[in-house]
Structures are given as structure tokens and as C-alpha cells.
């Protein structure tokens, strides 16, 4: 592990970039998936087409999406925004179904009780349905986070510098150390994101923690 210690700063920098490229799509993807998931539950006829479309989106190979994005977006070939947009698409594709399933798992009686209390539809969605769907959505978000970390590394094949660059550099020189360090760093990053999402989900669902009220 001397290689790792000698290159701590370099690996650290790549880790930060990698985290940035993986997390921004999670946030944006979630923001986009919530309305889409809501549409799927509100208009059940949209459920199947939306889910099928997102399933199809997820099967597009990441390398293809990374290389074709500059064409579609008109950005420079080396612009990391291409990676972020591509990953956002993958995140949305994963989360639409989760959000839809989460929202439809809210018992109908709870919805009706909220309406009976005089809570309007928008407020009911934000304060009642969405919070109750958090456990399911958080589970989907965890899978998306881990998946994103792995997919970002593929962008090394087109020259975007992140932990995946350790893979391509090590491979080109027949040198295992950087590759192993990169793999471990990716796993650690995935673990950190996973724990962060669990913590965030727990923070916004105090009623599930039991014991204390409110």
C-alpha cells in the first residue's frame, strides 16, 4: 500500500471529483423523478409507459451515452456536464418506478383522512404522501447511488478524470496498485453515500424511530 500513501493527494482529488459526478445526478434525478412518479400514480394509464420507458433508458450502455451526449447537448467533448446529464438520466430511470411504488404504498385511508382534515392536494402531497413514501424512495436512492459510483468510473474511457482514471492508467502500465486502490476508493465512496442516504431518510422520518413522540 505504499503506492496509495505516496499518492494520497492525487487519489483524494479524484475521489472528490468522482463524488461530485455521482451525487449531483442523484439530487437532480430525484427532483425529476418525484413529479414523474407522481404522474404515474395519479394517472394509472401512464404507469406502464413511464416504467417501460425508464427501463429502456437504463439498458442504454453507459459508454454510448457518454460519447453521444456531446452530440445531443452540443457541449464540448471533454465537458463533464455530459457525464452528469447522462447519469441524471440513469438516476431518473431507476427512481421513477421507486417513487411511483412508494407513493402508491401510502394507504388510501391516510390520504382521505388528510383531505377530511381540510389539507389541500399540494400540501397533502408534500406533508403527508411524500414523507410516508420516504422509506421506499430512500431504498431506491441507495441503489441509484451505488450504481452511479460504478458508472462514473466508465467515463475514464473518454478521458474524464475521476477514480476510473486510476483503472485506465494502471491497466495501460500493467500496474495493479492504482487499480486496486481505485476499486477500494469506489467501494468506500459507495458506502459513504449509502450511509448518508440512510441517515437522511431517518432524519426526515422521526415517526419511524419509535419511542419519543414528535
Amino acid at each position: 500500500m505504499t503506492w496509495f500513501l505516496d499518492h494520497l493527494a492525487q487519489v483524494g482529488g479524484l475521489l472528490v471529483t468522482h463524488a461530485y459526478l455521482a451525487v449531483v445526478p442523484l439530487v437532480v434525478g430525484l427532483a425529476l423523478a418525484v413529479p414523474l412518479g407522481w404522474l404515474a400514480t395519479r394517472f394509472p394509464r401512464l404507469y406502464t409507459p413511464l416504467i417501460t420507458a425508464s427501463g429502456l433508458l437504463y439498458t442504454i450502455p453507459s459508454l454510448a451515452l457518454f460519447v453521444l451526449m456531446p452530440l445531443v447537448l452540443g457541449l464540448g467533448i471533454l465537458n463533464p456536464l455530459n457525464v452528469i446529464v447522462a447519469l441524471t438520466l440513469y438516476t431518473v430511470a431507476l427512481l421513477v418506478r421507486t417513487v411511483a411504488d412508494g407513493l402508491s404504498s401510502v394507504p388510501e385511508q391516510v390520504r382521505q383522512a388528510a383531505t377530511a382534515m381540510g389539507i389541500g392536494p399540494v400540501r397533502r402531497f408534500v406533508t403527508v404522501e411524500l414523507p410516508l413514501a420516504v422509506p421506499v424512495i430512500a431504498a431506491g436512492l441507495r441503489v441509484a447511488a451505488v450504481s452511479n459510483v460504478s458508472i462514473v468510473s466508465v467515463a475514464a474511457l473518454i478521458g474524464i478524470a475521476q477514480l476510473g482514471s486510476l483503472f485506465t492508467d494502471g491497466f495501460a502500465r500493467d500496474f495493479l496498485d492504482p487499480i486496486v486502490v481505485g476499486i477500494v476508493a469506489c467501494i468506500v465512496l459507495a458506502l459513504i453515500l449509502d450511509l448518508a442516504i440512510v441517515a437522511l431518510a431517518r432524519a426526515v422520518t422521526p415517526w419511524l424511530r419509535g419511542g419519543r413522540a414528535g
Partner: protein
Amino acid sequence: MNLIVAYLTDPAHWQGSGGIPARVLEHLIYTLVTLLVAAAIGVPLGLWVGHTGRGRWAVVNLVNGMRSVPTLGLLFVAVLVLGPRIRGDLAFVVPSILVLVVLAVPPILAGAYAGVDAVDPLARDAAKAMGMSSREVLFGVELPCALPLLFGGLRSAALQVVATATIAAAVSVGGLGRLLIDGQAVRDYGQMAAGAVLVAALALAVDLVFALVQRVAVSPGLVPARRRPIDRKNPTPANPVA
């Protein structure tokens, strides 16, 4: 779009060892072999964990851990370590299949033990009451009841393998990934886009086949009721399964 059509309609691309049919076949073979190996590992292990309830914590963490391994990195390690030790053309294929198996086992394993978990305890009790041995319960009751979730896991694994097998082309393996890697090397957008479309189409086809097999293999009694639109104005009590 024009580029894709132009690439797909060029007859030269449909012939020879580098033609589209050859690549699709290679891709299918890699997927099939991967799924067979992964199922051989994941299904028995998952059934055992679900049936005995032992080792659950270890298996769940193993599954999550395996999911977070970056495929590209593992692929490079596998080729550097195993490649020189294998003779002939398989030198790059075997490490790739290995890495794809690592990718495919988590969903299959999860589907297997979640499936057994989801078996109605009443059914298990009834089986025991009828005098079935533990093994008979597993194969006669739990496995059939676990099939829906198990198939869900298999289909999820199949999709991931079809999509990710494309990366193996970075280590000189065949399959539809070649259209992507070779297209990227020369910036032939038509080739790359056509490759992406073909992969998506193949994934759909594989999923369809699995869906058909699932319909045949899974007992109709386990199929959940059709999703009915939520009639907000006249909520009806849940109807019995058709």
C-alpha cells in the same frame, strides 16, 4: 437518427465475423453463460438462506458489497491477473465472464432469499402439518412460491448483464460492445448509436423471453391482481384475486 439508420441498413455490416448477427450472438452467449453461472451460485445460496434463516446478515452485506464494486476496475484487474494464465482466445473472455458473474449474483441472490422470505407462513405451516420434511417444504412449497421474486431477480440481473457486457469490449472481447468501443475509437457516431440501440433492443428481447418463461413457470395463484385505477370518489374494498 439518420446515422443509426445508415449504419443498420448497410449490408456490409451484417456479414462476416464482425457483422451484427455475429456480435449479437456473441453477446447472447456471454449473457447466457453469465446468468447460468450466477444462478448456479445465487439461487441455491439464496434459497438456503431464506429457508434456514441463517447467515442472513452476512449474505445481505455481501450482496450490497458486491453491488458497489466498479465493474471496469474489476475487469482490468481480472484481465491483468488471469489473462496471462489462460491460453488461447479465452484469455480475455474468462475474466470478463467472471466479472459479469460478480455483477449478476447480487440481484439473483437477493431475489432468491426475498422470494423465500415472502412465502406465506400459513403455507409453510400447512405443509409441515401435512407431514412434509424440511426438504420437501423447500422444494414443494417455498421454491414455487418464491418464483415471482426469483424471476424478478433473474430479469434484473439479465438486464444489467446485457447492458454491462458492452464494457468487456474494452479488453478485446466481442459482443455488441465492439460497436461501441470501435465506434468510439474512430468517432463513428453511427456505429456507436447503432450499438446502443441494438443493446437496448436485445435487453428488451431477453426480458420478454424471461417474462414468457415466467408466465409458464409461475403458478397462476401467485400472480398479483391487476392494478386497478384508484377510484377516489368510490373507493371499493379490495376484491379477491381473480
